[in-house]
């Protein structure tokens, strides 16, 4: 019996051996080796099968050098910049999943949907026509495609949508990048061809009615900014008094509308110190004002309500940036139109546009990714009786979402955010390699691409290993931060 057991064990081990050996050879040993190498001066030019110069232990030398390497800091900054797209990607996935399940819509909405879709298409076509958009073959194809998607989705009950939304995930990464590179082509890409016509139309309007841009647009932008600051301060004050938000959440909540003020000043030509200083001062003033108010409901945890503020960041920040743009640069549009300088950007070629261009592409890929599938599964698992109870209580769609859907999806959101942070920190290599080679001027060099350059272009494997371990610690740190401050525990 015993012998038979041992024999079974040996057979089991023999079956597992290839996998274990593979794991040791390609995962475990390289990890240990890379950790050791990060403290050495291993250089591919001096340490290889043909050259066996002594390998020197350099202690923390590689890490110190990283701290002094401007390229490293630029790559780190770029990586964090790209990660700013994560909240939008999460929001996009959730919206896509909500649309596909129609969790927040009611029955008998098909007719309304058809009317909305038709109106949207009609208005879009009119806007395009007024904007000087000529109805070429490409335009017709796009409109026909959009109509097909809308109508197909409405008539088939969402199956077409689900397939279409998930399509980006089926496409190989490099093929997608090449496709987007062509879409972004400043001269022949459809993105700029479409934009050029719209901007030409905008230029004509600006020439015909300059006051729209010199007075009305900045006025609307300014009013919107003032309203957002007031609304957010008032909301946070109420949350503070009702013990719904902690100090960290309040500070975070105040930062985004006040940040817009800094942007306006900066874009109007003020120095960075004055611009950001004013924004910080305004934030602090509001913060102190709120915190010195009495709290009849007692104290709250520091980070309470942070999740809600993060969600508001996602929506509020783009709006405030657009409003700030309207205030700061709205008046310049007629001048630019006069000089015939309104045109679409060179997306991948201009330093200021390369990062946003890649973010838009990543966002497109992220919306139709596994995150959407996870949300779809999560939405399917929400007990229908909760919605029934909400309906009986007379809850509106937004209330159904806020008090049922969003809390029920919190564990999935938490998982998606953790995975998103990890892949965001590690990602960007294929994108940079295929589309921009890390340029222009290193604007799209992420940490992973920096590691590749360090290891395989300059041959400094010790240095690249050190950078890889810094990346690991960053991933570890942010994952811990997510576990610590994520809302997952509150919702279980």
């Amino acid at each position: 019996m015993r012998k038979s057991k041992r024999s079974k064990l040996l057979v089991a081990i023999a079956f597992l051996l290839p996998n274990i050996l593979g794991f040791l050879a390609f995962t475990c040993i390289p990890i240990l080796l890379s950790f050791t190498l990060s403290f050495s001066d291993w250089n591919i030019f001096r340490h290889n099968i043909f050259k066996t110069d002594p390998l020197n232990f350099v202690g923390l030398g590689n890490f110190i050098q990283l701290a002094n390497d401007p390229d490293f800091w630029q790559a780190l900054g770029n990586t964090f910049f790209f990660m700013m797209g994560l909240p939008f990607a999460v929001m996009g996935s959730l919206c896509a999943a909500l649309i596909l399940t129609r969790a927040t819509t009611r029955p008998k909405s098909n007719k309304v949907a058809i009317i909305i879709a038709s109106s949207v298409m009609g208005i879009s076509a009119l806007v395009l026509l007024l904007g000087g958009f000529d109805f070429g073959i490409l335009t017709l194809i796009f409109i026909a495609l959009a109509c097909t998607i809308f109508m197909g989705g409405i008539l088939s009950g969402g199956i077409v949508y689900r397939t279409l939304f998930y399509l980006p995930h089926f496409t190989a990464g490099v093929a997608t990048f090449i496709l987007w590179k062509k879409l972004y082509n400043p001269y022949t890409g459809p993105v700029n061809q479409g934009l050029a016509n719209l901007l030409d139309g905008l230029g004509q309007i600006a020439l015909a009615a300059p006051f729209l841009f010199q007075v009305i647009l900045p006025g609307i932008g300014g009013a919107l900014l003032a309203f957002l600051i007031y609304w957010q301060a008032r909301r946070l004050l109420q949350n503070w008094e009702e013990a719904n938000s902690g100090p960290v959440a309040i500070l975070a909540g105040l930062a985004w509308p006040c940040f817009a003020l800094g942007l306006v000043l900066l874009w109007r030509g003020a120095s960075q110190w004055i611009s950001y200083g004013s924004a910080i001062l305004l934030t602090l003033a509001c913060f102190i004002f709120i915190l010195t108010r009495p709290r009849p409901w007692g104290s709250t945890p520091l980070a309470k309500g942070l999740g809600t503020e993060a969600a508001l960041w996602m929506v509020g920040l783009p709006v405030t940036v657009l409003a700030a743009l309207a205030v700061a640069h709205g008046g310049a549009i007629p001048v630019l139109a006069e000089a015939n300088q309104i045109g679409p950007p060179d997306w991948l070629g201009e330093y200021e546009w390369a990062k946003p261009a890649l973010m838009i592409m990543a966002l497109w890929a992220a919306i139709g990714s596994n995150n959407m599938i996870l949300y779809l599964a999560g939405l399917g698992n929400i007990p229908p009786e909760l919605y029934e109870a909400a309906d009986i209580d007379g809850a509106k769609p937004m209330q159904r979402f806020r008090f049922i859907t969003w809390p029920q999806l919190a564990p999935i959101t938490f998982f998606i955010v953790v995975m998103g942070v990890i892949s965001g920190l590690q990602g960007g290599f294929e994108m940079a390699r295929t589309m921009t080679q890390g340029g222009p001027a290193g604007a799209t060099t992420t940490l992973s691409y920096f590691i590749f350059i360090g290891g395989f272009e300059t041959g400094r494997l010790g240095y690249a290993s050190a950078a890889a371990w810094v990346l690991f610690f960053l991933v570890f740190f942010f994952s811990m931060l997510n576990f610590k401050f994520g809302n997952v525990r509150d919702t279980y």
Partner: protein
Amino acid sequence: MKYIFTFSFIALALGSASLFFTLPEHQVGKPILYWATHGDQVKTATIERFYRWREEKGLPPVEVRIDVANADTTKKLIQGVSGVAADLIDLYDSQVYVMRSTGMLLDVTEYAEEYGFTPDKTYESIRPFFVFDGRQYGFPRNLGSTLIWFNRETFQEHGLEDPPETWTFSEFEAFGKRFVETANKNASERDRKFFLDRLFAEPMRRSLGLSNYNETMTASTLDDPRNVEVMRLMQRWVTELRLVPTLQEEAAFASDVSGSGARFSFFDEGRYAMISVPRWALIMLRPRIDARGRPFDLGVIEPPHGGYENVQVGIGVIGVYKNSDHVKEAVEFLDFLTSESFNLLVAESGDALPPVPEYALHPAFNRPPDFPEEWGLHEKFAQAAREIAIPVSISPYVLDSTIRRIQQNVLDALYAKQLTPEEAAQLSADRINSIIRMKVSRDPLLAKQYDKEIALQQKIDAYREQGKPVPASWIKNPFHQKYYRDMGWLLEDSEQQ
């Protein structure tokens, strides 16, 4: 269960054995040489001629297979240092130095003497590309001196005369302004016509007497005011006068057609009035003649200069992998590169210059019977290679790929107006010098060499201050070697003795 395991094990073992015995080497019954290179018609023709050449010489047959999948520089490097590279490796410009630094390239000095493909068989100007410390690491397949091609029809269309054979920076700028103003009078930005397709910073600096490095290549000299001037000119020509597209614009044009095709289709259409390409441009232009219904009316001129005429020279070298199983056959391939058969193939195909200079005097090179309209152009490339071509300066203290990346980033930032020309020049020098310091601090052998060279540099500086000629052996930078010689500042080794 153990029977399943035994069966699986035997099946896998048999599978592996059958795979091993069906490897190409065991199938064809003759040595197979793998050649890591980009595949094209000239490469295929090269292999065919190599087979014939071997037959004529009575050598046993071999098979040469082009390994396109591993022609990427990073792959060549990583596979090489890992022990699994191709037998013959195509290398360009500074890549020979890089690969040789890893120790993966075979030192073919003795073989070259035995077979006869020694460095003196080719142009003097390109020897620093594949001869280091007196040792040879391969042999050139071709070389290209970069001159400027122009299409007379484009200039005539806009009522402009031909550009001059040689020109200074200011002449180039004045002519360029006239061209873009005339050619883009009613054109939208999207259909803009450019004067030239690209600029090369190094020949521009050299024309002002400045190199990337000092004489001993121990420090970058890019913070020199002459480089500031070059940065200023490049910024003005690219971003203000828009004579030349930015690097990204050029890349964007190319993304819609395969390879470097955009440059040539733009040249054909007149959107680029001129292109900076070596003689191999003919490989791309000749096939267009049928489609356009008439031959090009081409001219070739020198790039603009700031006083000292020079051109960039590039080189394609074939090196032999040190771990090759077929060293003898690989070395014979290098010998084939000196043969008439191969050199005439380069001449006839419209590729860059044949590696052996005497074939640049051959009628197949100078007077191609099918293209009489090209007569008179080919000699200019050969003449430039002989007289004004200077190879890239490669410092042992910093990788050329690192330099290229730094310079690309600096130029991007300069064109985006994030850096002023002064800052761009200073930043380039600072970044390169900090890498040199770091590399020297980590490599004791290199540090020794560095210290010696620094001492020598001080002596050179002292000699220059006193107006004394500098011994040639002290100068490591190929640009300074030639520049000093042409200026009469060099004391030749023979004169010293």
